């Protein structure tokens, strides 16, 4: 049974050169011609124009800040020989005012001396844009036919920084300077400086364990400790042993650099002071009853009583932020009308906000209503994006309730969820520090000093301790790490978390019983998806519905498509009922997607979504993800098939295909008939009120386990126990079940199936 899953995949164990050619992650392996050692990027030696530049006279890893200054001063561009523009020189002037510039010589000396360097610089010190350029002038990657890579935790940052640096170097983006993010590669054969997401570098490393394309790798924003950065650090620690010519720079914004230094075997550390002003800290005298309300009141009070200066308020999530923005605007309107307050603009800021709206936070504060009137002010209500990664000038007041939404994973009940929880002391200091960027500021903490000391942990937990590691383990296996137990991570995860990840991958047949990567696992790791989703997608042709599952996977990986505004709940629910499918929410989502793609809707998709209480942004994103996944499917030669719609098995096939990925997320109605109980983990759960599924289904498959006072399962679909036994016999091995209701029900089903089979045989 388990074997049947492999039948349809056209995967051979020997390397497939044709497939490798098409794989963009392997692109560098093919353009190197006969000379295997030379990973050329188009340059041979010197530059493409053939004209010699000042850089040719430089000695690699032997230059000084003076040399670089000379080269920077032109008159021709040291990298492509073109005449330097006027804009270049004006930018150059501001660049030389940046705090990092003062320590260029010191940096170069340390960089030349050691293989790994830890660099600490506050946001705004210019490290992200300048350090890579300092490196370019000394490392001269073009002479080696290599590149300098700089990783960023966020796609947007990688793109915008690359753009900025291209401007600073007076080159076209995509030529000497480029970026590479998931699904978008903006680099060319001439590229010597590449900004990329940390996840992207990790993906490249899967196919090139030694990262041979790079002469220097810079890990920026390492203090954020994203999963990918953590793994890259562990990986690079091993790579430097094999490649003594590779240089590593770890850049962090916080002074927690000691830990980095220790981890990298006492690598030298260079710290550049940021430009900061003192910040007065205020605590409340008593704990707050409602931190959102207290935050709003504080903002209003600052507006009413404090001198000019913008406010930054930290809240936890999109909904809370939008709500607070609305309330603040309403109250200030009153304040303006009745007490002649200055104008106030309130901008939300969170990750899922479209970029043009995110850009608004940089608008200047509004002007006073009349000459000499009370000054205007802007308020930015943000998630913790604004904590370290974004620099907003003009902030003088920070309001910090002490919470943020953080991901947590409980390996025992296998639930990963975003919960509002207290921030760390380090975070609180970072937040307060935002107030002192332009001039002395004030930070209002909506908790007592005692609470700060007692209730906050010292450092935030890195992502690796807060996540389900199934896809990480798959990646590590693909990276050739065999001993997961002793892999040198900065923060090793909890043993139970690793156990769960291994177990899940084993049930998904991505790992064999000895812990080795199977061919299915290897294929699944090519998808930028959760392993369960990847496996579901890979096995979907078996159920003749890969087109549908492609849409389904895209819909599951984007934010909620249904919108339910507080003001129009009833209408929104009515609209949702239009798409409802009796068998569950997955099929309902599929209905929505098909309706969205219909010509009638595509005439004016935005309006259509608005009318039907759907999120245009989410659907558009799903469309995009689907396209990308389709490309991968085609590359991996996974058939794209559909059951004819008239076939009465159309929906059943889709539900069966869902089981192939989500068989570990199934619940059965318990004897009381009200609650459900999750299979194997035996957690008591309720159907989420948003489900379209009636209460009558005995077995359901769910996408999400929501942790609240009541445990809900969300996005559910009715399934049949026969399918489960049929599709995932290893997981539904009856001997491994605890005695109880679920086991007896499964036993009964198994017996029934056996009888039916025997009968069928008897007939024949």
């Amino acid at each position, binding site marked *: 049974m388990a074997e049947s899953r492999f039948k349809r995949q056209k995967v051979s164990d020997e390397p497939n050169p044709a497939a490798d050619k098409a794989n963009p992650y392997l692109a560098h392996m093919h353009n190197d011609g006969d000379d295997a050692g030379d990973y050329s990027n188009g340059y041979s030696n010197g530059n493409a124009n053939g004209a010699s530049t000042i850089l040719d006279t430089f000695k690699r890893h032997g230059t000084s800040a003076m040399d670089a200054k000379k080269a920077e001063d032109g008159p021709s561009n040291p990298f492509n020989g073109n005449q330097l523009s006027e804009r270049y020189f004006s930018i150059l002037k501001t660049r030389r005012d940046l705090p990092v510039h003062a320590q260029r010589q010191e940096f170069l000396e340390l960089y030349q001396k050691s293989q790994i360097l830890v660099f600490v610089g506050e946001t705004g010190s210019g490290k992200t844009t300048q350090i890579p350029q300092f490196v370019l002038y000394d490392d001269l990657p073009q002479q080696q036919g290599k590149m300098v890579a700089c990783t960023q935790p966020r796609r947007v940052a990688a793109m915008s920084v690359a753009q900025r640096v291209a401007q600073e170097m007076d080159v076209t983006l995509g030529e000497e300077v480029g970026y590479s993010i998931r699904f978008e590669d903006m680099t060319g054969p001439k590229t010597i400086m590449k900004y990329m997401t940390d996840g992207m570098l990790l993906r490249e490393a899967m196919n090139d364990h030694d990262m041979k394309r790079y002469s220097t790798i810079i890990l920026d924003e390492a203090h954020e400790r994203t999963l990918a950065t953590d793994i890259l650090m562990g990986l690079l620690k091993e790579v430097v042993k094999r490649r003594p010519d590779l240089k590593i720079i770890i850049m962090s914004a916080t002074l927690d650099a000691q*830990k980095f230094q220790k981890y990298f075997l006492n690598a030298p550390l260079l710290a550049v002071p940021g430009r900061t002003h003192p910040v007065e800290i205020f605590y409340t005298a008593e704990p707050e009853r409602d931190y959102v309300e*207290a935050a709003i009141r504080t903002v209003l*009070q600052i507006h009413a009583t404090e001198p000019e200066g913008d406010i930054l308020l930290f809240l936890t999530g999109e909904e809370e932020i939008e709500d607070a923005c609305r309330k603040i605007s309403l109250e200030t309107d009153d304040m303006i009308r009745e007490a002649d307050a200055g104008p106030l603009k309130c901008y939300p800021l969170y990750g899922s906000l479209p970029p043009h709206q995110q850009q608004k936070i940089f608008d200047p504060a509004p002007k006073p209503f009349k000459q000499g009137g009370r000054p205007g002010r802007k308020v930015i209500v943000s998630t913790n994006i604004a904590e370290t990664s974004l620099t907003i000038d003009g902030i003088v007041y920070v309001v910090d309730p002490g919470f943020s939404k953080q991901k947590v994973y409980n390996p025992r009940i296998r639930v990963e969820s975003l919960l509002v929880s207290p921030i760390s002391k380090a975070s609180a200091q970072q937040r307060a520090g935002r107030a002192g960027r332009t001039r002395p500021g004030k930070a209002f903490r909506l908790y007592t000093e005692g609470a700060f000391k007692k209730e906050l942990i010292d450092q935030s937990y890195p992502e690796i301790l807060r996540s389900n590691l199934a896809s990480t383990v798959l990646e590590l296996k693909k990276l050739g790490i065999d001993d997961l137990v*002793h892999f040198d991570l900065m923060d090793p995860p909890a043993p139970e978390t690793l*156990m769960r990840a291994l177990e899940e991958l084993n049930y998904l047949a991505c790992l064999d019983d000895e812990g080795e990567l199977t061919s299915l696992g290897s294929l699944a790791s090519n998808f930028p998806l959760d392993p369960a989703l990847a496996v579901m997608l890979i096995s979907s042709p078996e159920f003749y519905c890969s087109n549908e599952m492609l849409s389904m996977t895209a819909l599951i990986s984007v934010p909620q498509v249904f919108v339910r505004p507080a003001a129009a709940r009833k209408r929104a629910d009515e609209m949702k009922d239009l798409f409802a499918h009796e068998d569950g929410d997955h099929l309902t989502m599929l209905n929505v997607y098909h309706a969205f793609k219909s010509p009638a809707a595509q005439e004016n998709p935005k309006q259509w979504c608005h009318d039907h209480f759907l999120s245009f942004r989410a659907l558009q994103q799903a469309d995009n993800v689907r396209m990308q996944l389709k490309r991968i499917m085609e590359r991996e030669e996974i058939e794209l098939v559909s059951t004819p719609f008239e076939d009465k098995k159309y929906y059943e096939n889709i539900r069966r295909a869902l089981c192939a990925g989500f068989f570990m997320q199934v619940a059965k109605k318990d004897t009381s008939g009200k609650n459900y109980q999750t299979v194997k983990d035996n957690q008591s759960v309720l159907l989420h009120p948003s489900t379209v599924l009636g209460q009558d289904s005995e077995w359901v498959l769910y996408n999400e386990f929501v942790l609240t006072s009541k445990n809900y399962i969300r996005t559910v679909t009715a399934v049949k126990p026969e399918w489960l036994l049929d599709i995932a016999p290893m997981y539904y091995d009856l001997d491994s079940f605890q005695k109880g209701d679920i086991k007896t029900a499964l036993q009964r089903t198994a017996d029934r199936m056996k009888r039916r089979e025997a009968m069928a045989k008897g007939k024949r």
Partner: protein
Amino acid sequence: MGLAGQKRRNKIGADPNNTAWAKSKDNYGHRLLAKSGWQPGQFLGAENANHSDHYTAANASHIRVVLREDNAGLGMQRGKSNAETFGLSTLSGIFGRLNGKSEAEVQKQSDLQRDLELQTYQSRKWGTLNFVYGGLLVGDKMEEKKKLEQLQAEANGNKRKAEDEAPAVEAASSKKRKHTSEAESASSSNSDESEAEPVPVPVKEKKQKKKSKKEAATENTEEASERVSKKERKEKRKKDGKSGDSDEKALAKQEKRARKEERRKRKEEKRLRKEAKGKTSSQPSRDQSSDSSSDEDERSSTAPTPNPQPAAMSFGGTRHAVRQRYIQQKRQAGMNPQAMAEILMLKATA
């Protein structure tokens, strides 16, 4: 929330932590880890890692989080929020003593607690009023805030000297002494406070001021003379800065000025009497406003920032309450001492 709170009923499963899985040693993951040489209770990661002293409990087991149902702020605990109303706060002194705290410290703490309770009671019951700073009335002239601060700094420096030097000129009544000492203490606590936490201490100060307010209200006429003496002192201070060499000249001048001052004093008393006759009702309001303005200025100089504690905030978040506050504020602005003084002036001349 006690008995009145919402009832929450949760069905907790038989094994909410899934200890059955956690304890089992023969699951696939456990087996695989053990195969690589891991033993229960050990951290993962490199052996003898250089950075292992940075490991925390989170590296050993998953992170535990408390579920938050409401928007309660950090440090807010259900049922614990109002321990003082259960009388538990009275025990804190005993506990403090048992824990070996000094008597003075215990007393200080209980005083603080009492003041805070009073403040919260007052603000919950009647709400707090916000006052707008309008300068300091010295004699019949308004002093700018900046100058005042300067003066205060100066005063702290050479007040004593001034008092020693000119005891003869100053008609030293006991009451005046009291006032000056009070002012001194206020200003000194002032300067203390601008450095320290702005939260709990102003309560005490306010009380002090309330006391002085009462005094001022009962002995109206005294106030004028007091004010004059204040001015005298100030002038002396000014002179102090300059003088030292030309003592004689200064003395003559002083006498002259004293005479002048006396004249002015008499005039003012006359005016005050007239006023009192003319409009008795306007008097207290003026007092209050001038008093409260000085009150306000003290506050604004000590804690120039809004302390976002709920007790000090007079609006409850609803729009209605906010509106009410603005109305109050407007009314307060109508009582701006500058404006009032002008009105009274007009009346006095008319």
